[in-house]
Each structure stands twice: as structure tokens, then as C-alpha cells.
């Protein structure tokens, strides 16, 4: 497993954060991406995408990357903490038992999940990056234009994790891969 280049990506990394910044901690991924855009401003090999939700237009950027980190909020469970789960392998293929990748008809152009977005990369562009879902626990999802303190701290943790993952020779070490199905 590697966090660096596979065929076609030329070592480029993408951080794609999404969520609704007016729904409290749901905006954690969105806010992380805004911070990452500033943080990696001088890193041309790191592209940052920000949005309320993944959109088909992201497929082109993702398909051109070696590795991608999709960042979303997830309801805080008992375990808590920032989680990193694998979505695709080094060749951009989903795990064989990935239910979401097997149901791409969910993809209707209006709302996409990470698996469907990566499937669109494979179909439309012939390749997908090695991809991971980085989830930030959300304590509050009602109307609010800021994060709770625990979610804000988790965003900081996630940024530090990304710093390490985006070091040129660093390999990501996903844990709790099964969490991927509960996210997004």
C-alpha cells in the first residue's frame, strides 16, 4: 500500500472536503478543505476541492490524481476520533465487497457518495486514484454556522494527519476500514 503515485497520477494528491457549513458539525469537511487550501497553498502537487457535496465535476480532478482524501463529517459514535478508511486500492479499484461501489445507479447527477464518484472516475476517465475517506465525528448537525469545540479539535487532528499523509514518502495506514460504510 502506498500513498504515492500509481499510473496516471504523477504523484498528485487531492484533498476533497464537503459538508454544509450552516448545519453545525456537518460542515467539518468543508471547513477542513478551506483550511487545507490555505495550508497547502505552496504545494502545487496538492489540489484541494471544497463543496457542499461531491459533484460530478470533481471526477476529472480526482481521475488525474495518484491519491485522494475525501473528507466528510460522520455522526459521532462511541469510539469517536478521526478515522481513515480505504475506498480504493492502489489501482483505483474498490474492495470486492464494497456495496456502494456495486450500486452506482445511485449516482444521478444530483447527489453523489464517494464510492459513486470514484466509480464515475473509472468509467468516464478510465482510472481512479487510490482513495481514502477521512471522517470527522460530528456532535451537532442542526442549524449553526460554526463547529462545536470537539469537532473543531477533530478538524485540527485531521489536518495534522493530512500533513503526515501528504509527506512525499509517507504511506497511509487506514484503520477501522469497516467504518467507510457508515459514513458519507
Amino acid at each position, binding site marked *: 500500500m502506498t500513498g504515492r503515485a500509481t499510473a496516471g497520477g504523477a504523484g498528485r494528491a487531492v484533498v476533497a472536503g464537503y459538508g454544509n457549513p450552516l448545519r453545525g458539525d456537518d460542515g467539518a469537511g468543508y471547513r477542513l478543505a478551506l483550511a487545507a487550501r490555505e495550508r497547502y497553498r505552496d504545494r502545487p502537487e496538492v489540489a484541494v476541492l471544497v463543496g457542499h457535496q461531491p459533484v*460530478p465535476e470533481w471526477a*476529472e480532478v480526482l481521475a488525474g490524481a495518484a491519491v485522494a482524501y475525501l473528507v466528510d463529517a460522520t455522526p459521532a459514535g462511541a469510539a469517536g476520533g478521526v478515522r481513515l478508511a480505504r475506498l480504493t486500492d492502489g489501482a483505483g479499484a474498490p474492495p470486492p465487497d464494497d456495496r456502494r461501489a456495486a450500486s*452506482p*445507479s445511485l449516482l444521478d447527477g444530483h447527489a453523489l457518495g464517494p464510492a459513486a464518484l470514484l*466509480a*464515475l472516475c473509472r*468509467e*468516464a476517465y478510465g482510472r481512479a486514484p487510490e482513495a481514502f475517506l477521512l471522517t470527522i465525528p460530528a456532535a451537532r448537525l442542526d442549524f449553526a454556522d460554526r463547529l462545536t469545540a470537539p469537532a473543531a479539535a477533530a478538524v485540527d487532528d485531521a489536518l495534522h494527519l493530512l500533513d503526515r499523509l501528504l509527506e512525499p514518502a509517507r504511506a497511509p495506514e487506514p484503520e477501522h476500514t469497516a467504518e467507510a460504510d457508515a459514513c458519507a
Partner: protein
Amino acid sequence: MARRILIDPVTRIEGHAKVSLHLDDAGEVAEARFHVTEFRGFEAFCEGRPFWEMPGIAARICGICPVSHLLASAAAGDHILGVAVPPAAEQLRRLMNLAQIVQSHALSFFHLSSPDLLLGFDSPPAARSLFGLAATHPDVIRRGIRLRQFGQEVIALLGGRRIHPGWAVPGGVREPLTPPGRDRIRAGLPEQLEAIQHTLRDFRDGLGRFEGEIRAFGSFPSLFLAMAGPDGEWEHYGGRLRLVDARREAVEPAIDPQRYREYFGEASEPWSYLKFPYYLPAGYPEGSYRVGPLARLNVCRRFGTPLADAALAAFRATGAPGGGAVLSSFHYHYARLVEVLGALERIERLLDDPALLSARCRAHADVNRLEGVGASEAPRGTLFHHYRVDEQGRLTWVNLLIATGQNNLAMNRTVAQVARHYVRGGTELTEGVLNRIEAGIRAYDPCLSCSTHAVGQMPLVVQLVGPDGVVRDEVGR
């Protein structure tokens, strides 16, 4: 036995709706309705807010066409201020609206409707999606993605973000366009012009496969409303409104948008949250009219740019002999492609204007009028924002007349026409038939998030329909 058929939800549209078909004992369609089932409430909760805030609030009505609301709202604010916005601001607003038309039409055509057009209305529903299309026509998907990206990038370059830019304000715009921004837009144009011409050629070549749909998808005479320039050219911002009939003859040659309420009424029905606007002199529901790409191409005399004018001539050839209007709502798709081509040409032309880069892009004033109407051509059609304010500029009344609402009567008529064409006595109701009914609506690219607004007391009727199709109970308020 009488039956009721529900298509719930209608898919690949913006927002939430359902269709109900009522069949008589012979299995013929007795009635068909397009129900809009979501409610927003912007007109009510914006009361009391300062009108200066409205462009930013109104842009939040929709994630697909925020620019349309932003510009119509800012234009209403201009009128309340009583100012003429600086020329650069006027041109920059035009530039953003053209980019909005490009990105929204790309979404509608490539992402939402191409699965029907390229994979077929009868193809398996699981495959009839953007994903299915990516598997069979990846080049089409890539073209659509690039075209939409281009439009969104222009919006982001001007407004700082792709969605919900708070850039246009009463009196002008917040920021000018920079020379690097202009150059970046210009650099992207050739690829998109080539892409849309390629798509237009493919679409025209494939039209022969859709003769049935062209006849059945809302093909009827009606009125058409759109903005037009002083010489009748295609217009999308700042123009007068022109209403034409099925022969393309002017019924109302130049309506001042400030006086729209003298010409258009708003009705409501107990089974939908969506307004039913109509042309007042013709009454309700006879005053049904259509807006949007099809209407704009039927209303205008010419586009005013060479490639789009050639495409417009070919488009007109699909209409009635003698230069009549193109009547089938199926051709909204065709009209969208022509408009994207023309919008790109107009963007190119705007970029050549050195005044576009002027830093003088906002006029400042206080409240000078207590009422103002802003109108623009949104991708889906004519959009009105109408505000009344007190002396301090607080909104006392808001009315939003949205494109999709203005197509409501036509969409209902279209649903009935499609259903009557394909659902006949004894005919098996196939998935492909249901999809055609949805596609009849999809042709209008309705945006229900934008258009669900109350007229007076909110009507609500709940029906309990038994398995035999008989209404067992009904509760209304």
C-alpha cells in the same frame, strides 16, 4: 375499474415532485397532475430584512441557479435605490448570467437528460443514469463536465465562489474582473465552443429517433414569454419582455418588467405548492404560457452572434412551416444547446470590451423608491423579484415569480399529453412509459427548490385512495 397511478418521486429534476394519473374505467387517462411537494417560504421569512441583504439571501434559494436570484434581486435593489449601475457592473452581471446559463444548461442536458437521449427511454432504469452513460459514452460525460466546470469557473472568478456568490449588490457588483481573470476565461472558450458545436451536431443527427417523443412531449400551441433586446435580439438581462403566440407574432411587444403584475396573474391549486401564473387578458387557465430556452428562441428575432444565428436557423426549421414557433417541449433540449453556443459567443464578445475591467462597478445611494422589480432570464426562464420596502429599506412585501412556476400550466398539460399518448386502454404500463412521463417534465428542467412559493393561504389536501382507486377520505385546509 378506475385506477390511480403515482410516479413518486419524479427523478433527475431539481427538487421534489410527484405525478398522479387517474385512469377511467376504459383505462384511458382521465386526468394527469404534476404535484410539487416541497415548500420553501422565502417570500414570508424575508419580510423585515433590509433589502440590501436580499441578493445574498435570495441566492440561497437554490444551489443550481443562485446566480439568477442574485442578479434579479440586485436589479430590484437598483430600482429601490433609483440608480443606474455603472457600465462595467452591467457588463459583469451579464457575464455572470451567461456563465450561469452555460453551467446550468450543461447540467440539465449532459447529466440529467442525456441518459434518456443516448441510452433510450426504454433502457433499464438502473443503467439509465449518469453512471450508465459514463460506461457507454464517456466522451459525452467528459464534455459535459468540462462545459459545466467552465461556467462555474467564470462564476467563481467573478464572485469568489461557484455556488451562492454574494457578489452582485444593489447598485452594482462588489468586485471588478481582473485582467488575469479575463485571460483565464478567454483561454477556456475555444474548447467549449468546439464541444458545444460537436454536441449540437450529434443532437441534430439523432433527432430522427425521437419523432414520437417530439409529437407527445408538450407539443401544443401556446404563448411564449422572454426578454428581448431593442431590435428583437436574444436577451437575458436588462431587456423588455416580449410575449408571442404560436405564429411568433407579438401579443405584447415590450412589457416593462416593473409592470409585470398588470399582465400576469398567479393562481393556486389545492394539490400543489407551485404557483400557476397566467397571462391575465387570456384568463386562467387559458392564459398558459411557456418560458425558458424554447420560449427565448421562439421570441427572439436573432441571436446576434454568427454561430448561434446559424444554429437558430436550423432550430427554426423544426418549427411550423412559414416561420411559426417550435411548439414541442421536447425541443427545450435543442434550445438549450443553441443557447449555450450563443452564450459562449457572447462571453467572448464581452471579454473584448476594455470597459469590462473598470474598477468603477458600484453606485451608492439610499432608499429612493419604496418598490422595485428585478427581472432576468434565468436558465429556466424569466425570473421576477418584486420587493416593497419601508423608509428604512426593510422589506414589507416580497413576491418571487420563478421560471418553473410560469411553466407550471404547460408542464401539467405536457404530463397529460404524454400520458394520453402512451397510456391507452389495455396497454401495459411499462417502465419506459413512466419514464417518458417524467422526461416530459424533465424537458423543462424544472427547478422546484426555486419555485415553491405560496399564494395567500397555503393550500393542502390529503387524499386517502384505496387500492381500487376510490378516494376514501379527504382532508383539506
